[in-house]
């Protein structure tokens, strides 16, 4: 499955897409596994 095909269902492992940190580094949500994670996806930073 690719992220473009269909949204994830409850229970699916969240696709570990590369995100960027404020200094341009790569960050993956998988690096935070081991504890519950609250991910807030905002409309935009402003």
């Amino acid at each position, binding site marked *: 499955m690719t992220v473009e095909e269909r949204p994830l269902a409850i229970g*699916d492992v*969240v696709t570990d897409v590369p995100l960027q940190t404020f200094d341009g580094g790569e960050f993956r949500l998988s690096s935070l596994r*081991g504890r519950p994670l609250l*991910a807030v*996806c905002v409309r935009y930073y402003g």
Partner: protein
Amino acid sequence: MREAHASIEALGARVVAVGTGSTAQARRLMETGTPFPCLVDADRRLYRALGLGRVGWRTIFDPATYMNYWRAWRRGARQGDVSGDPRQLSGVAILDPEGRLRWRHVSRTVGDYPSLPDVMTRLRELGGGRDGPLRSRRGA
């Protein structure tokens, strides 16, 4: 969310913010005291994975949208420069320690965020507390 960060951490959970804007804006938020990572998803891959859509221009200029802006302004929110995709809708997701999606709120329009008490309740219901099922069996 800044104010609630300690309470969320007390439930054993971590918090990240994700935006479609620039890393410079993420840096500014971090430098102004945001206590959790502000990340950038410039190509919206996480947003698409979570099923977070984009809003039409008509909705952006709808009076109801401006009412949401006004309510946010009354809460003290101030709009800075906009970067990223202004049509992107927001959302909130709770992942368990193994990275599985356990709950999500998909915004239907501009300003459609779940209330903080609702998010906290979801975390507790899903067992984000010290001994809850969302906590890793590895004890991490």
